[in-house]
Protein backbone atom coordinates (compact mmCIF):
# COMPACT_ATOMS: atom_id res chain seq x y z
CA UNK A 1 0.00 0.00 0.00
CA UNK A 2 1.55 3.37 -0.99
CA UNK A 3 1.93 5.94 1.78
CA UNK A 4 -0.64 8.67 2.15
CA UNK A 5 1.04 12.10 1.93
CA UNK A 6 -1.47 13.64 4.32
CA UNK A 7 -1.21 12.88 8.03
CA UNK A 8 -4.16 11.19 9.70
CA UNK A 9 -4.92 14.35 11.69
CA UNK A 10 -4.94 16.52 8.54
CA UNK A 11 -7.27 14.05 6.86
CA UNK A 12 -9.63 13.99 9.84
CA UNK A 13 -9.60 17.82 9.93
CA UNK A 14 -11.31 17.78 6.52
CA UNK A 15 -14.66 17.30 8.23
CA UNK A 16 -14.40 20.88 9.46
CA UNK A 17 -13.46 22.32 6.08
CA UNK A 18 -16.54 23.77 4.36
CA UNK A 19 -14.69 25.69 1.63
CA UNK A 20 -16.23 24.96 -1.79
CA UNK A 21 -18.56 22.38 -0.22
CA UNK A 22 -22.37 22.15 -0.40
CA UNK A 23 -25.19 23.03 1.99
CA UNK A 24 -25.21 19.51 3.46
CA UNK A 25 -21.58 19.90 4.51
CA UNK A 26 -22.32 23.26 6.15
CA UNK A 27 -25.15 21.59 8.10
CA UNK A 28 -22.82 18.70 9.01
CA UNK A 29 -20.11 21.03 10.33
CA UNK A 30 -22.60 23.29 12.14
CA UNK A 31 -23.97 20.26 13.99
CA UNK A 32 -20.50 19.22 15.11
CA UNK A 33 -19.39 22.67 16.20
CA UNK A 34 -22.62 23.28 18.14
CA UNK A 35 -22.50 19.75 19.56
CA UNK A 36 -18.98 20.27 20.90
CA UNK A 37 -20.01 23.68 22.23
CA UNK A 38 -22.96 22.16 24.11
CA UNK A 39 -20.73 19.48 25.65
CA UNK A 40 -18.32 22.18 26.88
CA UNK A 41 -21.29 24.16 28.22
CA UNK A 42 -22.56 21.10 30.12
CA UNK A 43 -19.29 20.88 32.08
CA UNK A 44 -19.21 24.65 32.65
CA UNK A 45 -22.77 24.40 33.93
CA UNK A 46 -21.79 21.68 36.41
CA UNK A 47 -18.84 23.80 37.62
CA UNK A 48 -21.17 26.79 38.10
CA UNK A 49 -23.67 24.65 40.02
CA UNK A 50 -20.88 23.51 42.33
CA UNK A 51 -20.74 27.15 43.56
CA UNK A 52 -23.95 26.39 45.46
CA UNK A 53 -21.86 24.28 47.81
CA UNK A 54 -20.00 27.47 48.79
CA UNK A 55 -23.12 29.02 50.31
CA UNK A 56 -25.27 32.09 49.43
CA UNK A 57 -22.37 34.54 49.22
CA UNK A 58 -20.49 32.70 46.47
CA UNK A 59 -23.74 32.08 44.53
CA UNK A 60 -24.90 35.72 44.82
CA UNK A 61 -21.52 36.90 43.52
CA UNK A 62 -21.90 34.67 40.48
CA UNK A 63 -25.46 35.91 39.84
CA UNK A 64 -24.11 39.48 39.71
CA UNK A 65 -21.67 38.41 36.96
CA UNK A 66 -24.39 36.43 35.15
CA UNK A 67 -26.51 39.60 34.85
CA UNK A 68 -23.76 41.55 33.10
CA UNK A 69 -24.32 42.34 29.36
CA UNK A 70 -21.20 40.35 28.38
CA UNK A 71 -22.57 37.24 30.11
CA UNK A 72 -25.99 37.73 28.52
CA UNK A 73 -24.28 37.65 25.10
CA UNK A 74 -22.91 34.22 26.07
CA UNK A 75 -26.47 33.19 26.96
CA UNK A 76 -27.64 34.18 23.46
CA UNK A 77 -24.76 32.21 21.90
CA UNK A 78 -25.82 29.20 24.00
CA UNK A 79 -29.43 29.50 22.81
CA UNK A 80 -28.16 29.75 19.20
CA UNK A 81 -26.24 26.49 19.72
CA UNK A 82 -29.32 24.76 21.15
CA UNK A 83 -31.58 25.93 18.33
CA UNK A 84 -29.17 25.05 15.51
CA UNK A 85 -28.23 21.67 16.97
CA UNK A 86 -31.78 20.74 17.94
CA UNK A 87 -33.51 21.81 14.74
CA UNK A 88 -30.79 20.44 12.45
CA UNK A 89 -30.86 17.27 14.54
CA UNK A 90 -34.54 16.98 13.73
CA UNK A 91 -33.68 17.11 10.01
CA UNK A 92 -30.93 14.50 10.44
CA UNK A 93 -33.33 12.22 12.33
CA UNK A 94 -36.08 12.54 9.72
CA UNK A 95 -33.72 11.83 6.80
CA UNK A 96 -32.20 8.97 8.82
CA UNK A 97 -35.64 7.36 8.81
CA UNK A 98 -35.89 7.91 5.05
CA UNK A 99 -38.27 10.89 5.43
CA UNK A 100 -37.82 14.03 3.33
CA UNK A 101 -34.75 12.78 1.48
CA UNK A 102 -35.47 14.85 -1.62
CA UNK A 103 -36.13 18.00 0.38
CA UNK A 104 -33.28 17.87 2.91
CA UNK A 105 -31.75 21.13 1.61
CA UNK A 106 -35.07 22.99 1.76
CA UNK A 107 -35.64 21.50 5.22
CA UNK A 108 -32.27 22.86 6.39
CA UNK A 109 -32.96 26.37 5.06
CA UNK A 110 -36.47 26.46 6.60
CA UNK A 111 -35.30 25.11 9.98
CA UNK A 112 -32.40 27.56 10.11
CA UNK A 113 -34.83 30.39 9.29
CA UNK A 114 -36.95 29.22 12.23
CA UNK A 115 -33.79 29.19 14.36
CA UNK A 116 -32.95 32.78 13.41
CA UNK A 117 -36.47 34.04 14.19
CA UNK A 118 -36.60 32.14 17.49
CA UNK A 119 -33.12 33.35 18.42
CA UNK A 120 -34.07 36.98 17.76
CA UNK A 121 -37.16 36.63 19.96
CA UNK A 122 -35.22 34.94 22.75
CA UNK A 123 -32.38 37.49 22.56
CA UNK A 124 -34.96 40.26 23.15
CA UNK A 125 -36.32 38.31 26.12
CA UNK A 126 -32.83 37.74 27.56
CA UNK A 127 -31.85 41.41 27.41
CA UNK A 128 -35.20 42.77 28.56
CA UNK A 129 -35.66 40.41 31.54
Amino acid at each position, binding site marked *: *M*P*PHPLSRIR*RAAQWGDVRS*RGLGMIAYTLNRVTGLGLVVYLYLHLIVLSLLAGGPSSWDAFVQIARSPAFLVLDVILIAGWLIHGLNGLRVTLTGFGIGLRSQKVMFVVLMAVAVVALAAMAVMVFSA
Partner: protein
Amino acid sequence: MTRELTLEIFRYKAGDAAPHFDTFRVSVPETANVLDAIEVVWAVHDRTLTFRHACHHASCGSCAVRVNRREKLPCITPVSDYANGRLTIEPLRNFPVVSDLVVDVSGFFQRMTASGLVITRTAETSLDGKPVKLAEGMSRYNRFEDCVECGICISACPTMAASDRFFGPAALAGIFRARQETSNRPDKVRLLELADGEHGVWRCHTGWECSDACPQAVNPAEAIMSLRRDLIVHRFKKLFGK
Protein backbone atom coordinates in the same frame (compact mmCIF):
# COMPACT_ATOMS: atom_id res chain seq x y z
CA MET B 1 -10.32 31.23 -29.89
CA THR B 2 -7.92 30.04 -27.22
CA ARG B 3 -7.90 30.40 -23.47
CA GLU B 4 -4.83 31.01 -21.31
CA LEU B 5 -4.81 28.97 -18.11
CA THR B 6 -2.62 28.76 -15.03
CA LEU B 7 -2.62 25.25 -13.62
CA GLU B 8 -1.30 24.53 -10.15
CA ILE B 9 -0.86 20.78 -10.05
CA PHE B 10 -0.28 18.61 -6.98
CA ARG B 11 2.99 16.67 -7.23
CA TYR B 12 4.08 13.73 -5.16
CA LYS B 13 6.31 10.80 -6.03
CA ALA B 14 7.11 7.80 -3.87
CA GLY B 15 9.99 8.72 -1.58
CA ASP B 16 9.25 12.48 -1.56
CA ALA B 17 9.38 14.01 1.91
CA ALA B 18 6.19 16.00 1.25
CA PRO B 19 3.89 16.85 -1.64
CA HIS B 20 4.20 20.21 -3.42
CA PHE B 21 2.52 22.11 -6.26
CA ASP B 22 4.00 22.94 -9.67
CA THR B 23 2.61 25.81 -11.72
CA PHE B 24 2.15 25.57 -15.50
CA ARG B 25 0.82 28.08 -18.00
CA VAL B 26 -0.97 26.53 -20.95
CA SER B 27 -3.02 27.65 -23.91
CA VAL B 28 -6.05 25.54 -24.88
CA PRO B 29 -9.05 25.97 -27.21
CA GLU B 30 -11.99 27.85 -25.69
CA THR B 31 -14.11 24.68 -25.80
CA ALA B 32 -11.48 22.47 -24.11
CA ASN B 33 -12.14 20.47 -21.00
CA VAL B 34 -9.86 20.38 -17.95
CA LEU B 35 -8.45 16.99 -18.99
CA ASP B 36 -7.30 18.53 -22.27
CA ALA B 37 -5.37 21.15 -20.30
CA ILE B 38 -3.74 18.46 -18.12
CA GLU B 39 -2.75 16.58 -21.26
CA VAL B 40 -1.13 19.74 -22.65
CA VAL B 41 0.93 20.02 -19.45
CA TRP B 42 2.07 16.42 -19.89
CA ALA B 43 2.70 16.74 -23.64
CA VAL B 44 4.44 20.11 -23.69
CA HIS B 45 5.80 20.89 -20.21
CA ASP B 46 6.44 17.84 -18.07
CA ARG B 47 6.42 14.21 -19.21
CA THR B 48 6.83 13.01 -15.61
CA LEU B 49 3.32 14.19 -14.69
CA THR B 50 1.24 11.15 -13.78
CA PHE B 51 -2.53 11.13 -14.25
CA ARG B 52 -5.14 8.55 -15.13
CA HIS B 53 -7.61 8.76 -18.02
CA ALA B 54 -9.24 6.55 -20.61
CA CYS B 55 -12.61 7.24 -22.23
CA HIS B 56 -12.74 11.07 -22.31
CA HIS B 57 -16.54 11.02 -21.98
CA ALA B 58 -17.47 10.26 -18.35
CA SER B 59 -17.97 6.53 -18.86
CA CYS B 60 -14.88 5.09 -17.21
CA GLY B 61 -14.55 7.39 -14.20
CA SER B 62 -10.79 6.94 -14.17
CA CYS B 63 -9.75 10.60 -14.54
CA ALA B 64 -11.48 11.89 -11.37
CA VAL B 65 -9.50 14.63 -9.57
CA ARG B 66 -10.23 17.73 -7.51
CA VAL B 67 -10.39 21.01 -9.40
CA ASN B 68 -10.35 24.10 -7.19
CA ARG B 69 -11.23 21.89 -4.20
CA ARG B 70 -14.28 20.24 -5.83
CA GLU B 71 -14.32 16.66 -7.10
CA LYS B 72 -14.75 16.57 -10.88
CA LEU B 73 -14.42 14.35 -13.90
CA PRO B 74 -12.01 16.65 -15.82
CA CYS B 75 -12.97 14.97 -19.12
CA ILE B 76 -16.40 16.65 -19.00
CA THR B 77 -15.52 19.79 -17.03
CA PRO B 78 -15.12 22.77 -19.41
CA VAL B 79 -12.22 25.13 -18.73
CA SER B 80 -14.74 27.93 -19.37
CA ASP B 81 -16.27 27.08 -15.96
CA TYR B 82 -13.23 28.80 -14.42
CA ALA B 83 -13.55 32.40 -15.54
CA ASN B 84 -10.29 33.62 -13.97
CA GLY B 85 -8.31 30.88 -15.69
CA ARG B 86 -6.69 29.63 -12.46
CA LEU B 87 -7.11 25.94 -11.70
CA THR B 88 -5.70 24.04 -8.75
CA ILE B 89 -5.70 20.35 -9.55
CA GLU B 90 -5.27 17.75 -6.81
CA PRO B 91 -5.78 14.00 -6.52
CA LEU B 92 -8.94 12.64 -4.89
CA ARG B 93 -8.94 12.78 -1.09
CA ASN B 94 -9.21 9.76 1.19
CA PHE B 95 -7.16 7.51 -1.09
CA PRO B 96 -3.44 6.80 -0.77
CA VAL B 97 -1.56 8.76 -3.45
CA VAL B 98 0.52 6.61 -5.79
CA SER B 99 2.02 9.40 -7.89
CA ASP B 100 0.90 12.99 -8.62
CA LEU B 101 -2.81 12.77 -9.54
CA VAL B 102 -3.00 8.97 -9.42
CA VAL B 103 -4.47 7.37 -6.32
CA ASP B 104 -4.66 3.75 -5.20
CA VAL B 105 -8.25 2.64 -5.79
CA SER B 106 -7.75 -1.06 -5.01
CA GLY B 107 -9.53 -0.91 -1.62
CA PHE B 108 -12.41 0.96 -3.21
CA PHE B 109 -12.87 -1.70 -5.90
CA GLN B 110 -12.70 -4.51 -3.33
CA ARG B 111 -15.63 -2.87 -1.51
CA MET B 112 -17.54 -2.40 -4.75
CA THR B 113 -17.10 -6.11 -5.50
CA ALA B 114 -18.24 -7.00 -1.97
CA SER B 115 -21.37 -4.89 -2.45
CA GLY B 116 -22.60 -7.38 -5.06
CA LEU B 117 -23.34 -4.67 -7.61
CA VAL B 118 -23.13 -5.92 -11.15
CA ILE B 119 -22.09 -3.35 -13.70
CA THR B 120 -24.65 -4.65 -16.13
CA ARG B 121 -28.05 -5.97 -15.23
CA THR B 122 -28.51 -9.62 -16.05
CA ALA B 123 -32.26 -9.60 -15.53
CA GLU B 124 -34.93 -7.01 -15.98
CA THR B 125 -37.89 -6.81 -13.64
CA SER B 126 -41.14 -4.97 -14.04
CA LEU B 127 -42.43 -2.50 -11.45
CA ASP B 128 -44.30 -5.28 -9.60
CA GLY B 129 -41.00 -7.17 -9.17
CA LYS B 130 -41.84 -9.98 -11.59
CA PRO B 131 -39.28 -10.95 -14.27
CA VAL B 132 -39.87 -9.36 -17.65
CA LYS B 133 -40.12 -11.80 -20.56
CA LEU B 134 -37.19 -11.48 -22.94
CA ALA B 135 -37.97 -10.21 -26.41
CA GLU B 136 -37.73 -12.73 -29.17
CA GLY B 137 -34.13 -13.39 -30.21
CA MET B 138 -32.62 -12.02 -26.98
CA SER B 139 -30.79 -14.22 -24.49
CA ARG B 140 -30.57 -11.57 -21.77
CA TYR B 141 -30.83 -7.85 -21.06
CA ASN B 142 -27.71 -5.79 -20.45
CA ARG B 143 -28.30 -2.39 -18.96
CA PHE B 144 -25.42 -0.36 -17.60
CA GLU B 145 -25.54 0.99 -14.08
CA ASP B 146 -25.21 4.72 -13.57
CA CYS B 147 -22.24 4.45 -11.19
CA VAL B 148 -18.96 4.74 -13.12
CA GLU B 149 -16.91 3.87 -10.00
CA CYS B 150 -14.90 7.08 -10.20
CA GLY B 151 -14.36 7.35 -6.42
CA ILE B 152 -15.54 10.98 -6.33
CA CYS B 153 -18.04 10.23 -3.54
CA ILE B 154 -15.24 8.71 -1.43
CA SER B 155 -13.20 11.89 -1.83
CA ALA B 156 -16.14 14.17 -1.01
CA CYS B 157 -17.26 12.18 2.05
CA PRO B 158 -16.24 13.79 5.38
CA THR B 159 -16.77 10.51 7.24
CA MET B 160 -14.38 8.73 4.90
CA ALA B 161 -11.74 11.32 5.86
CA ALA B 162 -11.89 10.15 9.46
CA SER B 163 -12.29 6.40 8.98
CA ASP B 164 -10.71 4.03 6.45
CA ARG B 165 -13.03 1.27 7.61
CA PHE B 166 -16.26 2.99 6.56
CA PHE B 167 -17.78 0.98 3.71
CA GLY B 168 -18.24 4.20 1.77
CA PRO B 169 -21.01 5.86 -0.27
CA ALA B 170 -20.43 4.06 -3.60
CA ALA B 171 -20.37 0.54 -2.13
CA LEU B 172 -23.41 1.25 0.05
CA ALA B 173 -25.27 2.64 -2.98
CA GLY B 174 -24.16 -0.55 -4.75
CA ILE B 175 -25.75 -2.66 -2.01
CA PHE B 176 -28.96 -0.65 -2.36
CA ARG B 177 -29.00 -1.27 -6.13
CA ALA B 178 -28.12 -4.94 -5.74
CA ARG B 179 -31.10 -5.30 -3.37
CA GLN B 180 -33.36 -3.71 -5.97
CA GLU B 181 -32.06 -6.14 -8.58
CA THR B 182 -32.87 -9.35 -6.76
CA SER B 183 -36.25 -10.73 -5.78
CA ASN B 184 -34.59 -13.51 -3.77
CA ARG B 185 -35.44 -12.84 -0.11
CA PRO B 186 -32.34 -14.48 1.46
CA ASP B 187 -30.15 -12.39 -0.89
CA LYS B 188 -32.04 -9.25 0.07
CA VAL B 189 -31.51 -9.98 3.79
CA ARG B 190 -27.81 -10.88 3.27
CA LEU B 191 -27.21 -7.58 1.45
CA LEU B 192 -29.06 -5.65 4.13
CA GLU B 193 -26.91 -7.24 6.83
CA LEU B 194 -23.79 -6.35 4.81
CA ALA B 195 -24.85 -2.69 5.00
CA ASP B 196 -25.48 -2.94 8.76
CA GLY B 197 -22.91 -2.35 11.51
CA GLU B 198 -20.75 0.50 12.76
CA HIS B 199 -18.76 0.71 9.51
CA GLY B 200 -21.88 0.44 7.35
CA VAL B 201 -24.82 2.79 6.90
CA TRP B 202 -24.79 3.88 10.55
CA ARG B 203 -21.31 5.39 10.14
CA CYS B 204 -22.60 7.97 7.65
CA HIS B 205 -23.05 11.38 9.28
CA THR B 206 -25.31 12.76 6.55
CA GLY B 207 -23.09 15.41 5.02
CA TRP B 208 -24.75 14.74 1.61
CA GLU B 209 -21.47 15.62 -0.09
CA CYS B 210 -21.41 12.28 -1.97
CA SER B 211 -24.70 13.09 -3.69
CA ASP B 212 -23.67 16.69 -4.36
CA ALA B 213 -20.39 15.64 -5.96
CA CYS B 214 -21.54 12.54 -7.90
CA PRO B 215 -21.19 13.26 -11.66
CA GLN B 216 -23.75 10.58 -12.55
CA ALA B 217 -26.63 11.48 -10.19
CA VAL B 218 -26.38 8.10 -8.42
CA ASN B 219 -27.38 9.86 -5.18
CA PRO B 220 -25.51 7.59 -2.72
CA ALA B 221 -26.72 9.55 0.34
CA GLU B 222 -30.33 8.81 -0.50
CA ALA B 223 -29.45 5.12 -0.99
CA ILE B 224 -27.75 5.05 2.44
CA MET B 225 -30.76 6.67 4.14
CA SER B 226 -33.10 4.24 2.36
CA LEU B 227 -30.99 1.30 3.57
CA ARG B 228 -31.28 2.68 7.12
CA ARG B 229 -35.06 2.79 6.78
CA ASP B 230 -35.08 -0.79 5.42
CA LEU B 231 -32.85 -1.93 8.30
CA ILE B 232 -35.16 -0.36 10.88
CA VAL B 233 -38.17 -2.08 9.28
CA HIS B 234 -36.22 -5.37 9.12
CA ARG B 235 -35.30 -5.15 12.82
CA PHE B 236 -38.87 -4.41 13.85
CA LYS B 237 -40.08 -7.38 11.84
CA LYS B 238 -37.45 -9.60 13.47
CA LEU B 239 -38.52 -8.30 16.89
CA PHE B 240 -42.05 -9.48 16.22
CA GLY B 241 -40.89 -12.76 14.67
CA LYS B 242 -41.81 -11.91 11.07
